[in-house]
């Protein structure tokens, strides 16, 4: 590897180094605060190192990795999200009885895996990234192992993720068998000759879609989502919902753009069915939930369906729309789970409707932040979610995907119902005065409160003045050859 290679991989190297450093520090001196500070600093450092790469056009490290504007943006997004999640984690884990420090190693490793995903252009690096992400998540999900549902969630995720990885591997093998190559552009070159996909290749793609669909938790591969969301600690749930999905989505976009999968009606049909089914299943099942984490789980399924609408648009505008929506969705989801994490105590997470009853009158600021997050998920103006949904709709209308667009609109209305339900609960008068939970020193919550404030402000800022973000996305993507070609 040349010096240039090192420079371009700096964010990933920083993360790797941080993971090692934390392990050594734990061996020497176990202290939550120090580990937490190291984690935060390394995320910030990795993020700052991206500024060096801002102007990069396309830098390949043959044959595995490629770093371009698209990758830089997605890595930046995921690092920022991971940083925010670690900020929210401190107060949450401070009150737990378990060993807290290893959590941060796992968090860093999972982020590293997600980052590898978005820069990979080869099946080997893809699989490597995916497994680093998955294995870290197995442990993260069942981290608070004395809790009732944590084993269930962990084992469910472990078995299903391993299963889906097997599908993905088999799919890759079939693709390799019919094209004889494992790099994305090699596959694209091999496929450019076909008008219709040969059966074997199609089967291979189908199996890969199963693997990818599992990670994205789209219907019909969504079964794990509510249980894992419910069982995992709130900050980990936020991670599963954002960084893990974002990384896989980035990979999917890169792969599909490279091989130009939009030419094949069969693939489009599969994705259309998946998108429509995800929107409906997510929203309709969420209507019946009484647990806030499960509501958010089903809502995330439907949001992935919305994202697929923009994905199916297949234009550059579609990719911009996905990216914009993803940013909005990340802000919102991290914020929502951040609120849950903040309200949780050491025995269980604040996930029942009762925990939120009358929240507005007990803790007005927290409730305001949560209301803003829910309204953003519902796509109401003044929030980032609205502009994101608008962008997705615009991409769909622009490419005349009327069916998908109509389904999106219908589902937004269904979705409103359960978001409003949670908000209405927060506005109710509490029946009995609740015993205030025993809380830690207020100073511990500074990071959480600050993060939530930042997220809420970002949400409104993006919602009111999206120009800056749109500008940034467009300028980052302007130089990416696979996108510009479209």
């Amino acid at each position: 590897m040349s010096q240039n290679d090192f420079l371009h991989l700096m964010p990933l190297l920083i993360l790797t180094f941080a993971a090692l450093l934390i392990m050594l520090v734990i061996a020497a001196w176990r202290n939550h605060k120090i580990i937490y500070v190291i984690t935060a600093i390394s995320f910030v450092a990795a993020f700052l190192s991206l500024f060096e790469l801002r102007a990069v056009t396309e830098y390949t490290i043959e044959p595995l990795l490629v770093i371009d504007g698209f990758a830089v943006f997605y890595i930046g997004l995921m690092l920022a999200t991971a940083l925010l999640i670690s900020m929210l984690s401190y107060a949450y884990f401070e009150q737990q009885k378990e060993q807290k420090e290893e959590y941060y190693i796992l968090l860093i490793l999972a982020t590293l895996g997600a980052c590898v995903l978005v820069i990979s252009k080869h099946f080997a690096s893809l699989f490597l990234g995916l497994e680093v992400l998955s294995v870290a998540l197995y442990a993260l999900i069942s981290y608070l192992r004395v809790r009732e549902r944590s084993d269930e969630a962990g084992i469910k995720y472990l078995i299903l993720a391993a299963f889906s990885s097997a599908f993905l591997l088999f799919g890759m093998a079939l693709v390799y068998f019919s094209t004889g190559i494992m790099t994305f552009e090699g596959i694209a070159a091999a496929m450019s000759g076909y008008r219709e996909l040969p059966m074997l290749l199609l089967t291979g793609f189908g199996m890969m879609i199963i693997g990818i669909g599992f990670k994205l938790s789209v219907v019909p591969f969504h079964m794990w989502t509510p249980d894992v969301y419910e069982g995992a600690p709130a900050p980990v749930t936020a991670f599963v919902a954002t960084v893990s999905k974002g990384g896989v989505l980035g990979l999917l976009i890169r792969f599909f753009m490279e091989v130009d999968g939009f030419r094949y009606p069969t693939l489009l049909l599969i994705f259309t069915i998946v998108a429509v089914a995800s929107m409906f299943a997510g929203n309709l099942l969420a209507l019946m939930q009484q647990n806030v984490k499960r509501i958010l789980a089903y809502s995330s399924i439907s949001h992935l369906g919305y994202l697929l609408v923009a994905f199916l648009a297949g234009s550059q505008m579609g990719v911009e729309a996905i990216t914009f929506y993803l940013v909005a969705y990340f802000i919102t989801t991290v914020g929502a789970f951040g609120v849950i994490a903040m309200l949780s105590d050491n025995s269980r997470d604040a996930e029942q409707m009762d925990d939120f009853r009358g929240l507005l009158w007990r803790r007005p600021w927290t409730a305001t932040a949560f209301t803003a997050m829910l309204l953003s998920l519902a796509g109401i103006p003044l929030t980032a979610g609205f502009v994101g949904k608008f962008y997705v709709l615009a991409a769909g209308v622009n490419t005349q995907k009327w069916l998908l667009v109509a389904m999106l609109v219908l589902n937004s209305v269904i979705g409103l119902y359960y978001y409003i339900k949670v908000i209405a609960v927060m506005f109710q008068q509490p029946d009995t005065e609740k015993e205030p939970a025993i809380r830690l020193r207020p100073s511990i919550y500074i990071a959480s409160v600050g993060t939530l404030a930042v997220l809420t402000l970002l949400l409104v800022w993006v919602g009111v003045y999206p120009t800056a973000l749109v500008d940034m996305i467009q300028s980052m993507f302007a130089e990416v050859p696979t996108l510009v070609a479209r």
Partner: protein
Amino acid sequence: MILLWMIVLLMAGGVLAWLAKRWHPVLPRWIALFAILTDLILACYLWLGTPTAVTGSSPWLVRLEIPWVPQWGVNFILALDGLSLLMLLLTFFLGALAVLISWREISTKSGFFYFNLLWVLAGITGVFLTMDLFLFYFFWEVMLIPMYFLIGVWGHANRNYAAYKFFLFTQASGLLMLLAILGLYFIHGSQTGIYTFNYFELLETTLDPLAARLLMFGFLAAFLVKLPVVPFHSWLPDAHSEAPTAGSIILAGLLLKTGAYGLLRFVLPLFPGAALEFAPWAMLLGVVGIIYGAILAFSQTDLKRLVAYTSVSHMGFVILGVFAFNEWALQGVVMQMIAHGLSTGALFVIAGFLYERLHTRDIQQMGGFWSKAPKMGVIALIFVMASLGLPGLGNFIAEFLTLVGSWQANNWLTVFATIGLVLATVYSLRIMQKVFYEPAPTDRPLPDLNARELLITLPMVVLILWLGLYPQPILDTARPSINQQLEAYQEPEVEEKKVVVAEVPEVELGIEKMSE
């Protein structure tokens, strides 16, 4: 800039009112009142400051344009013409009343209440002012959430159900409008290469008939639900009767008007061909609404629900007039919007007074209040008469002009619409009869109106009389923008238009004599 200040003042006032609750419990209402009155003064200043607009010159009085999201062609455009100005005056007037009426009624969480109230008003103001379709949708939605809270937190017993229903109906229809806006945006973009949401530029889009029809239905969905027109009205009685008094006033007086305004401002000029095709059906829906609303109003026992159904009936005249496509009818529609806002608002105010005293809205339990509370009785009588269309009061002018206009468009439907006036008399008199004249079922004391309540109702009385006796300023203000909306329809019949314009003042003179 003055237009921007109006909106900013309301929004900032809302936030301040919320925060001010901590310093002193009465501060929020004073802040809210101050913000709205300042806006009212600004709007009056604009009205008096502009010379009577001359027909033919540009109807736009003030315009403001700031780029917002240039990549998508979204601009922050606010523009004011006669129609918007009248709507703004109505908005701020009713807004101030809504604050006064809540003065004692709202005791819990008053800071948050005034925050919501001011933000609803800000959204409505934005809807009446903006000439960018993206921004229009934006404000259209901004109205909803605070209104949802107003109903859902401070409403009566069944408030959650009503708030949900209101929200889902309006949100679903709004999203259809968003789709239509996007469709129009891309059609315009592909024709001219300029992607923009600017209303003035989108007016120049040429649409093929099918596309025009589909897009028009998208817009209609939002406006007909908001208005509401009969098959889509079922949210209205619930929302009106469960909302607190201030909420009912804003719903009936202002939110419904945004639907009518949308029809005038967007549907008519953007889709002339499709609107002409749809006109007979729309007028039919209007007539059905007039009669259906009246019959249901007659059969209600809940006073607020009764008044809510009269709104359905009155809004039937609006859609009847809008789709008659002539100046008479549209002048009538504008008058109807203002007069209905005042008269129905006042009836809700009276229902609120009664509820405050009796803690019931059931008219079976009322009666004999004429002798106990004569001031309230007189004021109620005036507005009941206004609602049934007594000459000399604003609603008469409105309904008369609408019917004259729609007669030219469709004789038979106008005949049936006129039957609605008879039915209006029946249900209106029933209110007076049941509440004020019949012998009292129980002998409860009923305090008469106090000074604050008189301060609320007397200006409404004055205004509704003024509208009935001397509507000319209103008609003058509205005329240029009405002609603007009708431009697409009038080119083949220029001569007729002149005749109509010349005749209007004479008619008003006739009305004045009659009422004297």
